[in-house]
């Protein structure tokens, strides 16, 4: 357990995981549930326990679609998506940890010329520092 990391994640996200009443509605509503190793409700609980490093190492944090379904539907206003984002930033803000690299972009455009700019800038914002 790394308290510094936990504090950093809580500060960045502004989320209080103690508000969670473990209903699991975030995981019930998440469209990316099946792609994730750790699911939204687990992520909230793991942050509470301080298991940030485990989460940082998990591919789950790149699967969140930022669709805000969990934020909107959480009965306790916990906002799990903000935790996922904070953890992902904790990773990609480190040097050399960009999940999507600038040199990958031409390949993406080549693979599908119809891909809208919006997809690229969004992915870049989500995956890259």
């Amino acid at each position, binding site marked *: 357990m790394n308290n510094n990391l936990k504090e950093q994640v809580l500060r960045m996200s502004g989320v209080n995981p103690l508000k969670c009443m473990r*209903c699991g*509605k975030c*995981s019930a*509503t998440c469209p990316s*549930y099946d792609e994730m190793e750790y699911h939204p*409700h687990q992520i909230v609980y793991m942050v509470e326990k301080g298991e940030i490093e485990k989460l940082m190492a998990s591919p789950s944090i790149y699967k969140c679609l930022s669709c805000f379904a969990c934020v909107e539907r*959480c009965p306790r*206003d916990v906002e799990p998506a903000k935790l996922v984002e904070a953890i992902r930033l904790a990773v990609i803000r480190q040097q050399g940890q960009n999940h999507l690299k600038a040199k990958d972009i031409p390949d993406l455009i080549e693979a599908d010329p119809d891909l809208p700019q919006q997809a690229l800038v969004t992915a870049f914002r989500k995956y890259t520092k």
Partner: protein
Amino acid sequence: MQKIGVFVCWCGSNIAATVDVQAVSDTLAKEPGVVYATNYQYMCSESGQNLIKDAIKQYGLTGVVICSCSPRMHEATFRKAVASVGLNPYMLEVANIREQCSWIHKDKALATEKAITLGRAAIAKVQLNAPLQAGESPVVKRALVIGGGIAGIQTALDIAEAGFEVDIVEKQPTIGGKMAQIDKTFPTLDCAACILTPKMVECSQNDKVHIYSYSEVTSVKGFVGNFTVSIKKKARYVAENKCTGCGECTTKCPMKNVPNEFNLGLDNRRAIYIPFAQAVPKVATIDPNYCNMLKNGKCGLCAKVCTAGAIDYKQQDQVIEERYGAIVVATGYNPIKLDKFEEFDYSLSKDVVTSLELERLMNAAGPTGGTLLRPSDGTHPHTIVFVQCVGSRDTSGCGKPYCSKICCMYTAKHAMLIREKYPDTEVYVFYIDVRTPGKNFDEFYRRAVEQYGVHYIKGMVGKVAPRADGKIMVQASDLLANEQLHIEADMVVLAAAIEPDKSARPLATMLTASMDTNDFFTEAHPKLRPVESPTAGIFLSGVCQGPKDIPETVSQASAAAAKVIGLLVTAKLTTNPCVAHCNELMCNGCSSCERVCPYGAITYVEKEFRMPDRTTQLRRVASVNPAVCQGCGACTVACPSGAMDLNGFSNSQIMAEVDAICQK
């Protein structure tokens, strides 16, 4: 100068642990006027009270200051004690050194210093206290019950049984409330109608009980023992004394497509209707929003078929004024609206229903005659998903922050009944926690799981998606299996949170009874006075005070009745002597006080005054009726000449307290 005794309570260690009680009594002993000061472990105990009584006798005390818990707790106890040895009870003041000192401070030096200051303020006040005599007021031997659900019915019957007149005001055309809509009751599964309707009949037959159905309270005046209440009897366009309840009109009325609120809109009724077969009073009512005769002056069919001649299209709302000694609030609840929970697609699919709707769908007198059928296509559902806590325990602003308390049990009941009647139906219940405290409650829930094979899944539903083929896709989490489930269901039942009836808030304002932020009425004490409102003479029955199931509601209803009876048997009530009074020599007759008085307790009289030059002068001066004055003090501040003052909280007393607090 008064001869004052100071008594500092330890309250065991509650006060003594953070306040140096010895130092407090030693310091206060030196205050001017104090002739005796001591401290003791429990002042409120019998020996503590004897200590006070003995000191009054021994030292001839004329004033008493008790440094102890909140005066809201034991002021009455101590007043009684000093009165028993002949001291006027209003010559006593309580300094609150527990709730407002020892319990909130940790530093002993600071707390002790504050306790001394609070003691000084009380001493300064007592110096200026004057003996007061409580007046008396008669009690009207009649009670009003607002709301005719099971809570109101039980309260009314209990009061009537004790021999007092009691009126029920119900805004629907019939009494019965929510319980009349319910099919079976947990944990015994006996039918709600079988146990409720006899009580409804009892209400109509008991000559002490009077039912004002289709009526509302419009104003409340007065105070405990003597309320004056206006009740509006809404025009039902049917003469209650003539209608026999034969129901002929309700089958002939041509307006057939009026949503039937008793069945929650699952079927239709006519514009003239009797809500259900066992309605009390069993009298038809015309719905003016749909009746063609009332809207356009065309039709009049019901009047033609009525052999009793009861139809009266010209009937008007009628306001009745009645006096009561006590008022019981039993306004009940409603399920919340689900417009903020559309992830469950309640408005998109007819087969997503609330639990109360399911009650009607399973009730033999309901729209399907008791056969559970899907509202959309009338087929048997084979997979049913129950969702718990829809809007309960919700702090996001969409729902209610509290637990609605009844849902766990009624869902277990529904699940069990369905599995029993239709064993081929799979039933899933998604729960956050299963809360079943109550006699035979957990056993009941376990029976649903173990005996009836209901699938209880720890998790929540996140999305409900109806398909064109009529199936409903339910996406949910199973937290124990750590997987997301996709269930193909035929029906989804939502356990919607319950909230106080919308009429409760304006009623509370009329009654000056306090409410919490959720619009539940607050009780005078959460543990020790759970069925009384802090406003004297107002009592609480049922869900208007907080979520409750039927057994609890009935217990509370009877408890409220017992309290009402206790009040009504009292011959006379002592009134609060802390009322306003006017110094006529200073009054200039300006009427400022009269205008601010919320009770109309101040009137003006012409009075002759003898002037220094021996002439007489006729002057107009204010006069307070002490039986009507409630002692708020609004007039004392409005008075420009300082003639108006309040007993027990006089200008000079409060000023003395200010001085004592600001000293040094």
